[in-house]
């Protein structure tokens, strides 16, 4: 791997400039999500402009939407839903999927076969349809949304982690640990996880993007975040009519989605590395 010339060092870790940019993007959106209620200029549901798809102006920094509501406020509040729901859902699905995947690879046999077939079956249900049925059945609330998204993306994370773990599992150092008498938990945590962490994190970044997109899809169908609140995907969808006019109402939510997903991926591909002193 080529080492970038620009490295920043702090507290025993070094991070390169790209990773730092990614971190700043993600961190600032997280900050926005937390502070949104105190920094929005207008209440999100209030129609503040007589014009719809209004341009960028002194009063409305990012223009207004199809009903004349302030887009900046809606994006800032939308960060809560997009960042919050997607982040929690991706964490749950990856943790669950990776843990099960590693266990299946290490335990093998019947456990592996049954779990794999079960998750394959789950995977075969179209994700939008699954979301539709669950939300229609139980009703839409944020915990339901999070769990639905998490369950939809667990089989993928499981497959990915299992495939990686099967390769590591055949290595001699795992055999050594087995012959030593180590239990499954130690094998997973200490021998396998550290060696698949890089690809798993990269997968987490991708999966995060998928979840953001699916969430906006569900919102479009009216199953996601309920109006007058909206996540970024819903903002894009509801303002899509402004595209022919080049309305900022449709461009800025898109930029928000792009900046978050790119930020997450940049950060994950360039995670801080522990500085290991080779001279000692």
């Amino acid at each position, binding site marked *: 791997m080529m080492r970038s010339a620009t490295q920043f060092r702090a507290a025993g870790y070094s991070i390169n400039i790209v990773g730092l940019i990614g971190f700043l993007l993600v961190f600032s959106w997280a900050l926005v999500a937390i502070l949104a209620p105190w920094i929005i200029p207008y209440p999100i549901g209030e129609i503040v402009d007589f014009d719809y798809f209004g341009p960028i102006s002194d009063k409305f920094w990012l223009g207004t939407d199809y009903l004349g509501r302030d887009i900046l406020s809606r994006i800032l509040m939308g960060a809560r839903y997009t960042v919050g729901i997607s982040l929690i859902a991706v964490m749950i699905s990856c943790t669950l999927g990776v843990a099960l995947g590693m266990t299946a690879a290490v335990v093998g046999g019947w456990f592996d076969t049954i779990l794999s077939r079960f998750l394959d079956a789950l995977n075969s249900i179209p994700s939008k349809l699954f979301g539709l049925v669950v939300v229609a059945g139980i009703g839409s609330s944020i915990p339901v949304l999070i769990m639905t998204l998490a369950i939809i993306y667990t089989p993928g994370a499981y497959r990915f982690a299992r495939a990686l773990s099967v390769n590591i599992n055949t290595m001699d150092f795992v055999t050594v640990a087995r012959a030593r*008498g180590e239990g499954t938990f130690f094998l997973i945590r200490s021998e396998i996880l550290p*060696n698949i962490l890089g690809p798993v994190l990269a997968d987490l970044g991708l999966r995060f993007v998928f979840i953001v997109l699916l969430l906006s899809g569900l919102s479009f169908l009216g199953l996601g975040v309920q109006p007058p609140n909206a996540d970024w995907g819903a903002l894009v969808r509801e303002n899509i009519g402004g595209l022919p006019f080049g309305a900022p109402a449709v461009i800025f939510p898109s930029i928000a989605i792009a900046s978050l997903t790119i930020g997450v991926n940049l950060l994950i591909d360039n995670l801080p590395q522990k500085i290991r002193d080779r001279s000692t």
Partner: protein
Amino acid sequence: MANLVEIRDLKVEATSDAGRVIEIIRGVSFDIAEGEIVALIGESGSGKTTIALTLMGYARNGCRISGGSVSLDGRDMVRLSERERAAIRGTEVSYVPQSAAAAFNPAQTIMDQVVEITRIHDLMPRADAEQRAVSLFKALNLPNPQSIGSRYPHQVSGGQLQRLSAAMALIADPKLVIFDEPTTALDVTTQIEVLRAFKSVMKKGGMSGVYVSHDLAVVAQIADRIIVLKGGEIQEVGATEQILTAPQHDYTRELLSAFTPKQHARPQAPTAAARKPPLLDVLDISAGYGPIQADGLPLMRALKSVSFRLEEGRNLGVIGESGCGKSTLARVIAGILPQVKGDVIFDGRQLARSAAHRQKEELRKLQMVFQFADTALNPSKSIGDILSRPLSFYHGMGRRQQESRVCELLDMVRLPRAVRHRRASELSGGQKQRVNLARALAAEPKLILCDEITSALDTVVAAAILDLLKELQRELGLSYMFISHDLSTVQAICDEVIVMYNGEKVEEMATGLEEGPGHPYSRLLFSSVPKLDTRWLDSLELDPELVSAFARR
């Protein structure tokens, strides 16, 4: 005699990830006369393959030829354009790789690949090329020379494939052939046949050759001259006979002495009265892979009713060729592969078949060290963490105790203490194997199963590991079960040897005895080990019946 190859002050550089420039070859000069075979010998990392590749004007990825000249038949390979070099490769200089299995395309027939060079360079019509290939197959002593070309690479054995890759290199009648460790991956009985074929073809064709190897005994059979390399510099150049009998340079002497390890000083065979119960008693073990058949045995039987015993403080060698079941035997004893039949009795107790059902104490006393030192160490953990784990697992030691014990263990295996902060990828092959040994010692075992632990190492490094094993045995009263395909390493350390063939134990005997092996297969195996004598291959006569019965060529 005119010189075919003249290498003058050759320098090759590589740029590391950190942007540091490393000199791999530092000003090497030598000549190769027409019809002469020159061997490049040295340990891994000495630059022998890199030099051989420069003869084709090629430098591996990340490397570049930074100075000097490589003149082949009057043309400087360094200065030629890539197109001109491509025209020379295959026609005037050709290459036989180390792993023929990796060099053949599994999706094409052998003939298609052997005549490929004539097609690329448009040398002769296909029919002529095929005729030539068949005559080369005959010259290389391949079975069924008429039809072997229509097979696919997986349908012939490793030794045959290696000879076929030589046919591929020889098809265009090159002036110079580069052999890059072509027999290293082969069994000894196969190696003889391949060496003989190479030698006769080279002599008949009057071609020049470069033979890259780390094995002095193999080189002694085929080369006219030997060049000893270390760290990218020539240590000594001399005729084969002179290098073997009267080495001038210290490093050459070191190589030679590493080749003939000191015979194991055998402890007095215990008298009947002093005979203790055996430490390890293996009774009638059968094991294998695949689904269990009607007779209760698996489809692929790797071990067929093997029994032996090992007394405390003594060492047992297990030898045999690849696929004979010797590694499976170690895996069964360690509980990695449960046997389907038979018992393992260790230290007076019958062991459960699978390691998962054995008690911690039983597991502790029986440790295993693997062949490939690098895959046996977790790449994401520091050496200190790797060595601490058995200490906390078996002995329940606290942090501070662990740290001091790790230092003691590193001292024991002669590694600097600072190594504990490093990771496996930052150590050399020999150092990694020492760490593996230290991990086994951390458990304070009674028996260590050593599965080919020196075969991936250079001779000098391997000899040092063997010395270490002996020393540890004296200090700690260990026993070893030493698995190897290399007779001399086994003789260096073991009291008794069992010979395995095709999953069966064919012979059990003490090392260093006068009478030698009794079973025909053991005789074949023992006589196939190359000796440091230039006339050994030519004077060797193997019973053809024996060879056809046992050697898997």
